[in-house]
């Protein structure tokens, strides 16, 4: 067992990742990318719901 294994690591979400550019046109922050992905999820569920209701 190495000494480092006994010491708790810092567990806060790192900020360096947020600083890195997303490179996605129109979505400059990672928060924006996550909202876009969440929006797509909501859209898929709504479309599936419409399909379910339309043909039940």
């Amino acid at each position, binding site marked *: *067992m190495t000494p*480092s*294994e*006994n*010491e*708790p*690591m810092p*567990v806060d*979400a*790192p900020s*360096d*990742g947020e600083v*890195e*550019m*997303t*490179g*996605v046109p129109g979505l400059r922050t*990672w928060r924006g*990318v*996550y909202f876009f*992905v*969440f929006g*797509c*999820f909501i859209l*898929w*569920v709504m479309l*599936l*719901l419409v*399909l*379910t209701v*339309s*043909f*039940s």
Partner: protein
Amino acid sequence: MNLLDFVVLLGSMLGIAAYGVWRTRAQRSLSHYLKGDKTEGWVTIGISVAATQASAITFISTPGQGYESGLDFVQNYFGMPLALIVIAAVFLPIYRRLNVYTAYEYLGHRFDAKTRLLGAALFLLSRGLAAGITIYAPAIILSTVLGWRLDLTIILSGLLVIAYTVAGGSRAVSLTQKYQMAVIFGGMVAAFVIVLVKLPTSLADAFTVAGGFNKLEAVSFSLDVHRRYTFWTGLLGGLFLSMSYFGTDQSQVQRYITGPSLRESRLGLMFNAVLKIPMQFFILLLGVMLFVFYQFEQPPVFFNQSAWREAVRHDPDGKLQGLQQEFAAACAQKEQYIRQWLDARHAGNREAETAARAQALAALDRSNAVRAEAKTVMETDDPGVKSNDADYVFVTYILDHLPHGLIGLLIAAFFAAALQSKSAELNALGSTTTVDFYRHLFKHKASDAHYVAASKWFTLFWGLVALGFALFANLVENLIQAVNIVGSVFYGVVLALFLVAFFVKRIGGTAIFWAALTAQTLVFVLYFSLNISYLWYNFIGCAACVVFGLILQAVLGSSRKTNVMRAS
């Protein structure tokens, strides 16, 4: 299958494997062998993550699931986009910052060695079991319908994947997955188009028929805990299942930590978060369209026709042949009612439409009853026969209705899917055994070449274990569900280890170690004693582990304080 089909099948499979071996020859560094050369862009990472998850079972079994139960299985994936967002935002930056080879190394940093080993052991156990299923599942179906020997199919496909995974490591896995996915998508899109073209009705009528037979119920908000797939089981159970699978299962972690930067890895995950639900939807819809197709074309009583022919040959009373005639009559009557239903709909006659639809539903019930009776007769005559034939629906359609060349492409697609997920699993099993057990417990300081050689031997070992399991496996569940059930039994606890590591700073190694063991035991007991959707075990295992961890930490913390006070 004819010569053209075999040329397409063997050419694509052997060609891709040989390319993977050639491109990754002479890798001496452990980092290169286990993480690749870090040149993959986000598209390659995204495809590799998708390919690792989408095994042959996804493409063979899911259309059968759509045929039998409609679209409701798509809800299983509702938790996945949310899980991938959490992983991209929280898990991934930590893995990259610590520059780990395996996810379980992080547990060693955060807790202690025994918790790291427990996490790695649970992974080896669950993935080792699933690895057998991923190689067995397509082999049994393909060998049955193609008339090949099962053991030879398992051994040859198994040896091919072992060869290029052992030789090329992680980079070979990613490289081959890209081309294997191209074969799969080419095959699946072609099959989907042909199914639509061959439908004897318009697309609108096909959706009317599918909806009328309740095959298009994609979302259900039912709170019935016995119902396997609902919005809630998909969102909650699927969230925990996906977070555990993508965030803590080394076969996935190894795919996305290979990126050259955090950005590439994150975008690879987001690629999957956006595309997985529509991809599964279209595969299920393919199954639903097959269902519609077989309402106008006489389907076999039992889709595993090889087993059916065998059963008919050994049926002394001729019961099965009688049932076959009964089934044909029920299907003919059903087709007649469906045509009346559609005619009435086109004429705008609502009353006649409702009446014809009710008659068609009753005829469907009759034909299903005959099918069920035929399965009972088969099971009575031969208790060893597998009565679940949903996995044979798509393959039967391919062989009966697709042109030559395309048959070869589809069979190649199934094998490609089997190899791509298998290679990632073997790669991860080999890495975890090398890094978390061998290097950690037995050989602390050795050269990179030594660890690369060890990793190759362990990958070979796991490949042979999976082959052995596949040769002796016997499954009763629909295959895609079998894989998810195995995962769900273990994943909740593994996920809890990581969630506590990330978010609950006050719980230490000893408390979480015993909490995890207790929670895993609880999940086993509940699994064998309750009848609830298996997706709930992801949530139960995770919640139990966290709660037990908090309680144990409180007890251990107070006893430690007491000891300190006594000592002072």
